[in-house]
């Protein structure tokens, strides 16, 4: 086995990787219009993999798909973004949220009212939330789309009165222009 290859790779993985590498290089040539030569049959496996590793994120981005990686990595990234959502309400700062909500984002709140992105950002600016906890979040990946379900618990004081809400949510995420953005959401009270 070539010393430059990861030691944990089996021969089957190497063969699969080589085939994938060759396919991706052909795709890269077509997409980028490069005048590169096709990989020689004798190309060293490790260098081939390195070339693909460099090209793959660009290819994925240009094709509108998130870079390949373990699903758990993608899930972690989306969950981290979900947590940013809560932070925005706590800090009353919609800046971060502006970037992660698609311009055409729509949300249905727990009263069944439709909200646009602008309305959600205004809600964040006027937030009276003092505690925002998320739990039981589950990510379902569907290529460049993802569905997240979970529960959030918020506490705060509104017009001098303390409030606490525990609600169920579902968010739809899309990998767009190299980043995950939320395109839709719905919040509902828990239980029948």
């Amino acid at each position, binding site marked *: 086995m070539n010393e430059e290859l990861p030691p944990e790779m089996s021969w089957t993985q190497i063969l699969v990787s080589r085939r994938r590498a060759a396919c991706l290089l052909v795709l890269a040539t077509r997409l980028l219009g490069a005048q590169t030569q096709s990989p020689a049959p004798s190309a060293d496996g490790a260098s081939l993999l390195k070339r693909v590793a460099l090209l793959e994120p660009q290819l994925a981005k240009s094709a509108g798909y998130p870079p390949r990686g373990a699903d758990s990595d993608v899930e972690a990234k989306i969950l981290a973004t979900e947590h940013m959502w809560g932070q925005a309400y706590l800090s009353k700062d919609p800046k971060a949220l502006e970037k992660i909500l698609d311009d055409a984002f729509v949300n249905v709140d727990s009263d069944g009212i439709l909200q646009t992105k602008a309305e959600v950002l205004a809600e964040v600016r006027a937030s009276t939330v003092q505690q925002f906890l998320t739990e039981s979040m589950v990510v*379902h990946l569907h290529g460049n789309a993802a569905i997240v379900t979970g529960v959030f618990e918020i506490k705060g004081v509104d017009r001098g009165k303390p409030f606490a809400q525990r609600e169920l949510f579902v968010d739809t995420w899309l990998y767009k222009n190299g980043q995950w953005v939320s395109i839709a959401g719905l919040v509902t009270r828990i239980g029948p």
Partner: protein
Amino acid sequence: MVLVCATSLSGSSQEAGDSDATAVRALEGERVKAQSRNDNHALDLIFDNALVYIEYGEVMTKGDYLSRVKSTKPHLQQIVLGPMTVRSLENTAIVVGTYRKTGVKDGKSSLQRWSFVDTWVNKKGSWMLVAAAAVPLSK
């Protein structure tokens, strides 16, 4: 459960007139028809295996939901779809709309309006429903 598609399926002014939106809108109509006749086979083809369904504040799987449809008595409930908009982005489509649910509970008739958000993903050329969520309109 009886579902009536009261909304025109010809389109809405709030959506792009692309073929994806048209296809998804037609599938929403097919879903309504399938539910109206408790046709789990048709629903099985429309629903993605990883479907997440949220209604009455509960998360259900595809299996949970199909079981519920199977056990629902059609004559006790009627659903009428209201206006809906479809927005397609690459291989994903979002449908937002309302429906009216009438039924009989404890001998009394009831009427409730709901808002819903459905997410469809195009997988290998077929649009599949991957998430459906609804919440009662309180006002």
